[in-house]
């Protein structure tokens, strides 16, 4: 109604102003539910994490300011350093493996035909099963002596190997399970990237007599840079944060044997929900976040931002 009145007095200008403000209001209202939710359940916890790190929290929810005590404790805590080492090792093993396997599988099934679409689904299938179930199944297969994997190892001339009982092997087992779960996902991400490379480049290279290896090296890899950057970044963040590792380790090894699979997130969880040391756990989580931010920044610098614009 007001529009009509306004239209009569000052046709274009007044009306433009009011529709503009209506659009503003609509924009804010449409964004509000998600913005508010993200603020409460992501923003606040992020800030809170930093704050709680300077407090000691007792079992009754009482907070006592302790300054840097939690951080000092961390420096002296051999289990924290052990967990940091295990986390780094897990990420260093998993990220390159995921990259190679994801890209390898993508190249293997790149051609679009019915056969490949079935194969793709088979590679991706583990990803739709929950990590709890995944961990249980692999744990069952790794049971000493009688599990199917242990039997296979014996048949291959490695009798008496305890996959989950040997501190030197348990982390490798966790990496292998993570790889099995994730490789189909990264295969799809790489397939998406490969799809965007214009066919003409390959045709031109073929006419020039370039072989498959050369085509991969001089066309596929360079043009796949944005996808590669994306894959490296999200796989690294997920590995360090323990996005998959937590569920797998919680079910398969509980961090054992001899803390050999106790990644930071498992140790943080134990401290918080096992011992009620919320302050200490939050301090460790802050360090983890700092490490994540630092790594992302380094990756950005190295790849000059992965050149998002050209994706």
């Amino acid at each position, binding site marked *: 109604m007001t529009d009509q009145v306004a239209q009569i007095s000052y046709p274009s200008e007044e009306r433009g102003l009011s529709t503009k403000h209506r659009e503003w209001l*609509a924009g804010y209202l449409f964004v509000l539910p998600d913005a508010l939710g993200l603020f409460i359940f992501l923003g606040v916890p992020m800030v809170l994490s930093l704050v709680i790190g300077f407090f000691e929290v007792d079992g009754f929810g009482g907070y006592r300011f302790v300054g840097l005590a939690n951080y000092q404790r961390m420096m002296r805590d051999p289990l924290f350093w052990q967990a940091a080492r295990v986390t780094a090792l897990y990420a260093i093993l998993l990220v390159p493996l995921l990259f190679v396997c994801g890209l390898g599988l993508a190249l293997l099934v790149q051609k679009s035909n019915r056969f490949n679409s079935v194969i793709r689904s088979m590679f991706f299938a583990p990803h739709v099963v*929950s990590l709890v179930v995944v961990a249980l199944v692999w744990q069952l297969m790794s*049971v000493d002596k009688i599990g199917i994997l242990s039997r296979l190892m014996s048949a291959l001339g490695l009798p008496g190997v305890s996959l989950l009982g040997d501190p030197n092997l348990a982390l490798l087992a966790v990496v292998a399970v993570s790889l099995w779960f994730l490789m189909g996902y990264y295969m799809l*991400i790489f397939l998406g990237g490969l799809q965007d490379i214009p066919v003409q480049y390959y045709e031109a290279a073929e006419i020039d007599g370039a072989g498959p290896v050369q085509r991969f090296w001089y066309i596929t890899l360079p043009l796949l840079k944005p*996808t590669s950057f994306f894959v490296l970044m999200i796989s690294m963040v997920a590995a360090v*944060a323990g996005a998959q590792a937590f569920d797998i380790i919680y079910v398969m090894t509980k961090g054992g044997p001899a803390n050999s699979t106790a990644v930071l997130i498992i140790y943080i969880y134990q401290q918080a929900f096992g011992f009620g040391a919320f302050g200490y756990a939050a301090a460790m989580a802050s360090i983890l976040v700092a490490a994540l931010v630092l790594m992302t920044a380094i990756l950005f610098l190295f790849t000059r931002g992965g050149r998002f614009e050209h994706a």
Partner: protein
Amino acid sequence: MPRPHFFAPSQARLLQFVWMAVSAVLAAMTLFPLFWMVSIAFKTPAESFSPNMIPAAPTWQNFIYVLTEVPFLRYMFNSFIVSATVTVVALLFHSMAGYALARLRFPGREAIFLAIFSTLLVSLPVIIVPLFIVVKTLGMLNSYAGLIVPAIFNAFGIFLLRQYYLSLPRELEEAAVIDGAGYWRIYWSVVLPLSRPILAALTILFFLANWNSFLWPLTITADQNLWVVQVGIANFQSQYSAAWNYMMAASTIVALPMLILFVIFQRQIMESIKTSGLK
């Protein structure tokens, strides 16, 4: 002009055959653990660890035990309620936000989008402790609200929907504007129907993610009546540590609906993940 080929035709055919064989073998190896799970689920306890794939005396006993002796149906019910509610509410909120961020002009839009986008780097494990404290302060510990509400908000969905809306032609909305429709009507009767394909894909992805989630439900539910299947199954393990036949039956019941869902919607699921990479 015939294109020169790197391989002779006969070589190429052989290469293609080897290529397919390698793919098939690798794919079969990938699926093996899942077949093994189903196989053990049908085996008797005595046969649990025999290396044969096909059970000598297949039995439904394990399934019957799990469904009758353990409150497993209750866990499934909880998982379903939580996953379905989160999915529906999340899709509504995310499509609203995605539409506004893609189409409506208002001050601070880019800043809001950037803030939302940056939360993509924050994963649940690193904020689990403070999130627990926030949810506890809101009095949502040990409740369906505690299971559902924090799981709704996730930047991934907003981001994908915004990208989708950016790629939609504006003409249809403009027609609605000329007809004098308000923003809510444009969103509800023009934009939402147009986003059916991506909403379908996201429905499956969200439901899957929530059905499979473990860490958050584990952290905030102590009451066994509120347990979701993943927590129930993990607890099963500490209770019946050697009864692998029961555990695999339970695992099969939990995993099978998702595998079936995947087989039915594989094209949509895989397409939406493929495009989520970097665009």
